[in-house]
């Protein structure tokens, strides 16, 4: 048990999107994007959140920041339930939590210069009294992300993708946040650039002690940066464990399948490659029981009736499966 409470704790968080249909547009169903998710992140830690596209991980990231209102559950940030905050308090809270998006092209306003973009958070939160102080802060931010001072007067369209992502990072850093959601922040970049950006993020974590929720759609990206990894399937977290544990001993068949998809840069290395059958089922009508059972090679009748409860497989290693691949993980 840690003596300190976690920085962020998510309790039974759900997000449903209504579906309207019929002649009068009545409610005909829900998309259960995030389904009863709970986890916590400690200060200075990076939690990697991995899943196929459409599994609800982006929605989860945004719901945590209240960019979307949760349908149920709580988000505790420094023990404060932010889902209950009013607009005023929430705005203040936003200083502490930020987000970096996937698409560096869409996440910068094309009509604003870099200086205007970086200055905006300072103005919103009235962080620096004088223009000179703000200017100084801008230089500092550019320094963090290794961009030159000339960048301030340029427009986003004059930068490359990697540079833009740095600007996004700088913007997120502007308010000195303690927690940043990186929503597939490197997925849109070239592999070489990805590494640069990830390194930058890790450097910043060291330097500023920032906590990350790092969302990605494959396990490989997360490998370097995450201390812990959570795997999500159809709105639910199916497995969560410290990084080492999950890469070496994946318990959930789905995690295993994801892991097997990572190419290994060694021509002699052979490994069993698991190719999942079928598509991701519709989140409107998820399969009964374990959502993964139609694609699972280990599924039994049990899997089709009830959703498996999380089970402990080692220190901090939980998994929701009736037939885990490793019963007990070595410590």
């Amino acid at each position: 048990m840690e003596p300190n409470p976690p920085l962020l704790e998510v309790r039974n968080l759900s997000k449903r999107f209504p579906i309207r249909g019929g002649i009068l547009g009545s409610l005909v169903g829900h998309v259960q994007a995030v389904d009863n998710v709970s986890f916590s992140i400690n200060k200075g830690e990076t939690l990697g959140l991995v899943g196929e596209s459409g599994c609800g991980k982006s929605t989860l990231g945004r719901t945590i920041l209240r960019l979307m209102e949760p349908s149920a559950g709580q988000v505790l940030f420094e023990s404060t339930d932010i889902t209950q905050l009013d607009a005023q308090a929430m705005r203040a809270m936003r200083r502490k939590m930020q987000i970096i998006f996937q698409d560096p092209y869409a996440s910068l306003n094309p009509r604003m210069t870099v200086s205007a973009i970086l200055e905006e958070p300072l103005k919103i939160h009235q962080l620096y009294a004088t223009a000179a102080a703000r200017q100084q802060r801008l230089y500092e931010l550019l320094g963090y992300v290794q961009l030159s001072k000339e960048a301030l007067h340029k427009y986003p369209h004059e930068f490359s993708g990697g540079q833009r992502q740095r600007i996004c990072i700088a913007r997120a850093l502007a308010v000195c946040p303690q927690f940043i959601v990186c929503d597939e922040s490197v997925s849109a970049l070239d592999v070489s650039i990805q590494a640069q950006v990830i390194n930058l993020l890790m450097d910043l974590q060291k330097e500023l002690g920032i906590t990350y929720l790092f969302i990605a759609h494959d396990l490989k990206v997360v490998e370097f940066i995450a201390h812990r990894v959570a795997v999500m399937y159809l709105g639910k977290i199916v497995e969560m464990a410290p990084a080492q544990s999950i890469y070496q001993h994946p318990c959930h068949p789905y995690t295993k399948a994801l892991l097997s998809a990572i190419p290994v840069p060694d021509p002699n290395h052979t490994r069993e490659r698991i190719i999942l059958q079928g598509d991701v089922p519709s989140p409107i009508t998820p399969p009964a029981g374990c959502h993964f059972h139609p694609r699972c090679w280990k599924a039994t009748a049990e899997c089709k009736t009830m959703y498996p409860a999380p089970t402990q497989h080692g220190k901090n290693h939980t998994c929701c499966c009736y037939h885990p691949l490793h019963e007990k993980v070595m410590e």
Partner: protein
Amino acid sequence: MNMYHYAIRRLLYAIPVLIGVTLVIFLLFNVVAGDPTLILLGKHATLQQMVELRHELGLDKSMLMQYCDTLKSAFTLNFGRSWATKQQIMQMIKGGAYASLTLSIPAFVLASLAAIAMALLAAFFRGKLLDRSLVVVSVIMMSISVLAYILFGQWVFAYKLGWFEIAGYEYGFPNFLPYIILPAIIWIVLSIGPDVRFYRTVVLDEVHQDYVRTARAKGLSNRIILFKHVLKNAMIPIITNLVIQVPSLILGALLIENFFGIPGLGNITLQAINNSDFPVIKAMTILSSMLYIIFNIITDVLYTLVDPRVKLK
């Protein structure tokens, strides 16, 4: 959601719009514009007569009852009689619609065909002199006032050169033909400009699609690609644009009809305006609004029917 649900929903959605339209019309013409008695009784009216007439027309009823009357007339299509001419309004509109349509349908068909042909030509010779001059000509045609076209056209082509009838109209085919030619030409000149520009961009949009590149790669000639493939796909926005124009055909061209003495709906409307003939104005407004709504629904439904890419939202 299926097609029928969608169509029915669109129809249901038309009800609040129709209520909105009748409400606006009612507010404007019954509440604001007010008292018809002078229009009806003329300069010799006496006070007692006015009171009697108000009763006769139901204008002494409460506003709510009067609005119900308006609403009822919209749904039963019974608009009563004109104040100015005392004629049955639906009868007037029927006759007027015939005259208007004999002008507007040929003009519309010709203008659309010509516009599509010109647009294809322009797209075919994209960037060349022909394309640029077609675009410039259509912009020029759009930039001249309707009234100038009518006055000049009538004076020069009908009178000085004697090519066309100056004005007038006769019912029955082919008697109306000589009378509609010049008005139809003016109509075409007026509407061809925006249409050519619109269709040209539609065609050019299609030209940039991948399938055109594939067709080119197959070695098909430009002409075949343009007419066989591009036109087929461009038809969807073109047809939508055509359908959406239909309600305006029925109202006709106000000024053109008046100047050429064509007793169409435009003419009726203008007369009604000049006579402050509110029942006719109301009837025309309600009818054209209804047509607009209906044709919008048709366009939407048609669109989803033809183009599977459009999602039913």
